[in-house]
Each structure stands twice: as structure tokens, then as C-alpha cells.
């Protein structure tokens, strides 16, 4: 029977791994949003959340390494599949049109490489922007901690930052709308009634999740960081 290496490099293995890493990243996004929403909690809530993560110490590095691995693996597979299509069809059609019906060819599925690439670039900038951004400090329970909340509130009052974030998050809606359904399909879901329900769930999941993410910069921007949802 095939070795794990052979299986992972087979066309079936590559698709299954794209699905597994994609599902892993979706779980991460749910956790990320839950954490972000603590910005609307008490004045210290967001900084307590970030401090708790920082206090994990070496465990945090392990989690970060795992996340980076999932993200890079997903990206490498996606780019490699996209590059493979040029090899598999060196000369394209003069005219090409989807037949519709059961086809899942749409704006979301056809733009996975574009939305994915932009999300990848965004992720690098996002980490530089916040993780390695201005290192303000505050006191939490008598201990010195990073005041990431202040940085977030400051940054999301800059027009270009908010436009950039909202743009990428809208692209992420597209990426997830196909990715969510496709991940289940890659993991063996049949193309029947369940598949239709999963597609509807995929739209709902991606829209709700991304609205949650988008709400934060927009709220801070339009209230100047002084809206009633933000406690001081």
C-alpha cells in the first residue's frame, strides 16, 4: 500500500490535505473572532485576553508554529494545484463557458487563487501591523502588560487601514464560501441533499464570521473609538 509520502503527494492526498488544513484554519478564525470581540468587553478585557495568550509562553510558540504550518501547507497546496492546471492544459480555449446546473463554478470558486493570495499577503502585513506594532504598555492586576487594545483603537481610526481590512475580509467571504463546501467534498461528502445544505451553511458561515470581523474596524472608525460598546 502507498507510503504516507506517496499518499500525500497523490492528487487525492493533496485535495484531502487542502480540506483538512482549511477546516483547521476555519476553527482558528472562529477562535480569533471570539478573542477580538473581547474589545467590546470591559476596559481591560482585550488586554487580559492577549496577556493570557502571551503568558502561555513556550506553548504559544507551539500553537503559532502549528498555525503557520497549517497556513503554509494550505497555501503551498493551493498554489501548486493552480500552477498544475497550466501544465495540464498548456493551451486554453478561445471560448469557455460553465454549463451551470450542478456545477460549482462561480465567482468564489474561480477566484480562490486570487482571494487566497491576497489573504496570504494580508496575513503577513497583519502580523507586522499588530503583533510587531507599537509596544504600548499598561498595568493589569499590578503586572505590566502590552496595551494592544490602544494600538487596535488607534489603527482602526486610519482610513486606509480600515479600507484595507474590510476589502480583504470581503474577499475572505468569497474564499470561505467555496472553501467550506469544498473541504467537506474533499473529505468524502456525496453530491446530494447534504451537499446542498452544506453549501447554504458555507454561505451563512462565511458571511456571519466575516461580518463579525468587519464590524470591529468599522465600529471603531465611525465612532472614533468612543462608541458606547467601548468601555474606558
Amino acid at each position, binding site marked *: 500500500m502507498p507510503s504516507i509520502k506517496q499518499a500525500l503527494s497523490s492528487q487525492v492526498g493533496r485535495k484531502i490535505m487542502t480540506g483538512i488544513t482549511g477546516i483547521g484554519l476555519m476553527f482558528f478564525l472562529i477562535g480569533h473572532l471570539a478573542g477580538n470581540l473581547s474589545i467590546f468587553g470591559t476596559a481591560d478585557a482585550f488586554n487580559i485576553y492577549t496577556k493570557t495568550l502571551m503568558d502561555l509562553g513556550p506553548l504559544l510558540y507551539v500553537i503559532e508554529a502549528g498555525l503557520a504550518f497549517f497556513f503554509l501547507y494550505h497555501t503551498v497546496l493551493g498554489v501548486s494545484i493552480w500552477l498544475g492546471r497550466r501544465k495540464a*492544459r498548456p493551451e486554453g480555449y478561445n471560448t469557455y463557458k460553465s*454549463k451551470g446546473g450542478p456545477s460549482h463554478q462561480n465567482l468564489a470558486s474561480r477566484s480562490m487563487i486570487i482571494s487566497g493570495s491576497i489573504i496570504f499577503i494580508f496575513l503577513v502585513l497583519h502580523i507586522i501591523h499588530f503583533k510587531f506594532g507599537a509596544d504600548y504598555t499598561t498595568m493589569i492586576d499590578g503586572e505590566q502588560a502590552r496595551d494592544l487594545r490602544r494600538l487596535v483603537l488607534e489603527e482602526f481610526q486610519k482610513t486606509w487601514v480600515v479600507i484595507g481590512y474590510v476589502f480583504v475580509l470581503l474577499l475572505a467571504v468569497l474564499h470561505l464560501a*467555496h472553501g467550506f463546501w469544498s473541504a467537506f467534498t474533499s473529505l468524502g461528502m456525496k453530491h446530494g441533499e447534504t451537499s446542498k445544505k452544506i453549501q447554504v451553511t458555507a454561505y451563512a458561515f462565511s458571511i456571519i464570521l466575516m461580518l463579525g470581523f468587519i464590524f470591529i474596524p468599522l465600529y471603531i472608525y465611525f465612532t472614533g473609538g468612543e462608541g458606547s460598546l467601548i468601555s474606558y
Partner: protein
Amino acid sequence: MSKDMTIHLKYWKQAGPDAQGYFEEKTLNTVNEHMSFLEMLDVLNEELQLEGKDPVEFDYDCREGICGSCNLVINGQAHGPKEKVACCQLHMRNYKDGDHITIEPPKAGAFPIIKDLVVDRSAFDRIIEAGGYVSVKTGSAQEANSIPIEKEHSDLAFDYATCIGCGACVAACPNASASLFTGAKIAHLGKLPQGELERSKRVVAMVDQMKEEGFGDCSNFAECEAVCPVGISISAIAEMRKDYVKAVFS
């Protein structure tokens, strides 16, 4: 008698596998709505021959939608605009007077063009050779009910077995993947007790061969299902993936 239609054709011409291809155009004024698409091409070739030109080569055999020989990409859609219809069974009544039709061969690196609209689909044969069979002495036909098979399984096996190997799935896939064809062949045998013994060996060999032939990866576009003239579902690809995972851990 129905009125003749005028159809403006634009079709791919290519002298041989390594020759540079190009589009040629011709207007037909005597297209009848009762003609099949291939009969319309017969009319085109008659006119071309009367003009002393080379006819356009295209693949066909049964013209009944069962052999899988025809596989034209018509206005960007494999087998043309109708669902679950091979282009030999596509009739000109689906077009109207004055329509423009572009005809291209299925394009994939694994399907090199032999001439004009004819491509070499022997890559499919090699996928079958890799494992799409049952290695038992068949002898003469057995009593049909001697091996009990659940109705659900025999129905599914039959659905997958209806694949005629035309290659429309590859032609329409944005990645030129052969996953639907390969999946259908694997799922068809995997659903029957006769295919069970070689199940793991078969899936691994056929999936490897698919890659070896230069077909692309599947991206779950499901366009293959939309163009399949016999309507094979991408559930066949799910069956292939499940069998592959089982083979890895067996």
C-alpha cells in the same frame, strides 16, 4: 419541411500534433433543425470537399450517444449547451437562424490533438489498464442471482458504469482533471463484490496513473458533472477519495 437556417461556424484546424492550430470560418446556409450537430458537420465537410478543401476531422462512431467517441467543445461547453446529451445527440433545433458557433477540440496536455477536432484519448485507456478491471476467470455467464448484491449497490454500480469515457469531464474541468472518469471507474467496480478483492490496489494504481498521464488536480468545481453526457455525479470522486484513504490505512 422546416426552413433552412444559416449558421456561422468557426472551427479549429490543426494539421497534426505538432502543427500550429488556427481557426477557420465558414457559413452554412442549408442547416436543417432536424439535423444532429454531427450531421451539420457532415454538410460542412461536403461543402468543403466541393470547394476542393480538406474536410474537418472530428471523432464519432455510434451517433447514438452511447459510444463516447464524440467530444466537441461547442461555444465553450463540452458537448454543447444541453445537459446530459452527447454532441452527436444534440440537434440543430437548439440553435436559431444566424447563430455563431465556435467548435474546439477538448484541450488537455494528456489529450494531444491528432488532427483538427480529433484528440488522442489513450490516456484514459492507460488509467483503466492500471487497475480498472477484475482479475478473475470469468468463464461463461453465471446465473444472475448467484451472488446476492444489495439493490442500492447494484444501482449505484450501474450509474457509475454508464461512463462512456468521452472525456468531456477533462475538457470542461478548469484544471483538466480526470477525477470524474477515474472516480466513476473505481466506484463502479468498488460497489460490486467481484471488485472488492482488488479495491485498494486498484484505487492507488489508477490515481497514480491519472497523475502520470499529466491530468490536473481536482478543485471541486463540479463542472465535470454538469457536462457529463450520462450525468455521473461527483459523488464518484468522493468514493475514489474514500477508497484511497482506506488503502493508505489498510
